[in-house]
């Protein structure tokens, strides 16, 4: 069912309203929780006997608040997916707008920042494609997902580029991907092995530290201000949900073989996949465009 611009806008408006409501509810709940927790703390200090029921009440309130927040976030994701669908439809309809480089880079950054954050419930482990958790073997990237694709450039050189899935050809087991840098106007058909899906969620360092790449792991990371992935080593993990990794890219022009740490968003740090030619080592000067 193709989304018309009006219906899309209407849906988005509806959801925005819902989100507003949720925000208010969340705030109320937060205040309530704050009160109960302060009374809990008071009773703890006073070694009251009523600690347990107060604890239980606080737990209940916390879970309620969590549910509301999750609902609000779900609405936001719906809005985003609606927008995404509209964009894909527009592109398929032949509406190719030329995006300037600066704008493209900003988009890339923004999409990384607003990638949904995974906050695990108690005892829940991070799912596949969250942070460093790899995809399952039979996972097929959906239309519109961002991937890292090993594509051949003009000079027969293979590079891992940031691309978007157009469709998956089941019979051939190949992906039809398009470089997000539309100036290239490159559409590649690549086998499944040459396509790595990017994570769909960020990992929260506070609750799911295990879903992050450990320090000194060899990874592939998107070089800042480019749309290509290069081999790098994790130097520093993000400490909060909004922080980036700091990675050291391979650079033969440096003494130890690695450049200074550069920040890369969680979304653009993926597991290293060696190719025949050694994964196209990154250097300080790149020509990605």
């Amino acid at each position, binding site marked *: 069912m193709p989304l018309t611009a009006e219906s899309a806008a209407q849906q988005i408006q509806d959801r925005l309203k819902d989100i507003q409501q949720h925000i208010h509810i969340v705030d109320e709940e937060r205040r309530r929780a704050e009160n109960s927790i302060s009374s809990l*703390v008071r009773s703890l200090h006073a070694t009251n006997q009523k600690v347990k029921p107060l604890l239980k009440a606080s*737990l209940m309130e916390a879970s309620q608040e969590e549910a509301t*927040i999750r609902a609000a976030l779900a609405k936001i994701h719906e809005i985003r997916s609606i927008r995404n669908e509209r964009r894909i439809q527009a592109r398929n309809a032949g509406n190719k707008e030329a995006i300037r480089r600066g704008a493209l880079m900003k988009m890339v950054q923004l999409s990384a920042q607003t990638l949904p954050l995974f906050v695990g419930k108690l005892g829940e482990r991070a799912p596949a494609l969250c942070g460093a958790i790899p995809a399952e073997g039979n996972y097929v990237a959906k239309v519109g997902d961002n991937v890292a694709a090993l594509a051949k450039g003009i000079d027969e050189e293979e590079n891992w580029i940031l691309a978007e899935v157009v469709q998956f050809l089941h019979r051939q087991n190949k992906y039809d991907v398009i470089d997000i840098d539309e100036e290239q106007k490159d559409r590649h058909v690549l086998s499944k092995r040459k396509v790595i899906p990017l994570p769909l969620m960020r990992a*929260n360092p506070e609750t799911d530290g295990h879903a992050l790449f450990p320090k000194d792991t060899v990874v592939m990371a998107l070089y800042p201000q480019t749309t290509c992935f290069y081999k790098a080593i994790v130097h520093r993990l993000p400490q909060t949900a909004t*922080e980036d990794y700091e990675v050291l890219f391979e650079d033969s022009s440096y003494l130890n073989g690695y450049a200074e740490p550069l920040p890369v968003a969680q979304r653009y740090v993926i597991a290293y996949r060696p190719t025949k030619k050694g994964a196209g080592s990154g250097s300080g000067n790149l020509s990605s465009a």
Partner: protein
Amino acid sequence: MSANLKNIKLGHFGGGGSGGAPSSSSGGFGISASSGGAGKLPTNGTGGGKSAPPSSFAEAEVLATPGGVVIPIIRTRDVAKLLPTIATALQRPADDHLAAEDLDAVQLELEQMLSNVALRTRVLKTEYDSLDKDEKRQDRRKLDRVPGSPPCPASMLNGLLGIGSNSSTSLGSPLGGGGGGGASSSSQSKRKRDEPTGVRKKHSSMTILKQQQGVAGSSAKHQAKNSPLAVHTDDSMDYLPNLVAANASGSVLPHHQPLPQLPKVAVPKNDTPNKFWLSVEPYCMPLTNEDLRLIDDLLEQYRGPLVPPVPTLGPHYSTVWAQEDMKALQPGGTRLKSQNASGMLKKAEGMVEESITGPLTQRLVSALMEESLMTLPSEQAAVGEHSNSTTSSSNENTHSLSSSSANAAAAAASGNFRSLAMMKHGVGIEQRLKKTLIENGLIDASEFAAQEDVDEVLLEIKRVTTEISSISQFNSEELKRLRSAASEEIKRIAIKRKLDTVDQEILECYKRMLQYRAKRKGHTIEEKQEILRLTNEQRLLADQLERMQMHQPCGSGGGASGSLLEPKM
């Protein structure tokens, strides 16, 4: 990060009781720290030892438990600072829609809140769990103090620790509480200091108890492992009546009396008795159906015939090979021809027999004759020479025999079989020779007797089979006896278990009665009836048990001690 940790440790060392002191020190830290956040680690065995500090929710007044655990929550006054977009959204009424351009910021802030809530949930849950554990431990300690109930192993140890610790210095967190996760160094060191003493106390108390109670204590412990209900029935009492008297009075009191002295006794960790009782344990455990099945399986072995029946002796391998050789020699042997082959062999054998009968005569002839002289012309002369040179033992009969047999041999050598067949002297040569030799005392009769059907293998088999069968008979008898004893024992154990449950119920009734008395309430009629019923049941079961026991000890004692003999080969 490390600096944070250090400060917290100092804070906890200095603070102790109130949460104000540590929180203020780390709170001050928190204010100065910006995005790094103040590292606040949960303490006192509460889990969730998150090494990454919660994000910057630091404020002057931190909501924390007395133990120093910070409960992550965004205070209202911080909302404007930490969640600006949401704050502005809150300015607008609830039925308005969110500004589309705020979407991203709102998302990030909502995620922040979500993370905060998740952390809060975890912290609260761990606090709750630790409180739960404390309560359970206290309950168990209270239960163990009830007199007349020998404690279960886990609760026994806890009870001992509880009792032991109550009288001694208070343990910060007894062994049961060791399950807590990451902790700051202060509580860790405290626990480390306490654990070795706790462990030592456990061992020392166990050793001393075991020395006192001997079999009774350990079997009670083992019993409890198998049948959690039958805590009180002490199997050991059955077989060691001497200990009953000693333990009946001392079953309860020694638990408590020497215990207060335990902490003073610094017994070096002696593991040997534990190892010993562990090794003995499999033999003292009550029987189960598994064991019955095991015995049944063993019996199975003895059901069928020991040795498969020995087939009758087939044709000797020489005849079989001879036949096969004949078949092989004949070109393209068909059935008729193979039949012919066996017929031919028989004929050949017959001929061989006809010509020279028996081994004895053969030997005689060969002794009398030289092979090289077996030629036609010189035959007679040679025969004559040989016949003249026979020993004194040969008499006329043999002389004539030898001559005739020499003739026969000569005839055979010339290949004239027909004349042999008609030779009258040759008939029964073997027999006559045998008779003569035996008469002369040259050969014993016994030598011949054993030659017929000498099948040494069969004899050996028979001998061994008789040996084995006698032993297996004995074994199967023993196994059957063991099995009947085991099934009896299992019945006994079932009755004991019922008895135990009845005992428990009676105890509960008793407790209720005590409560009633304490409250000055009268007992109802139903209660009295129930008590009567329970006591009757108890008496019945006890009688039943005794009756079984009276039949048991002699039989089962012998059965249990009877061993299966190994056949000596």
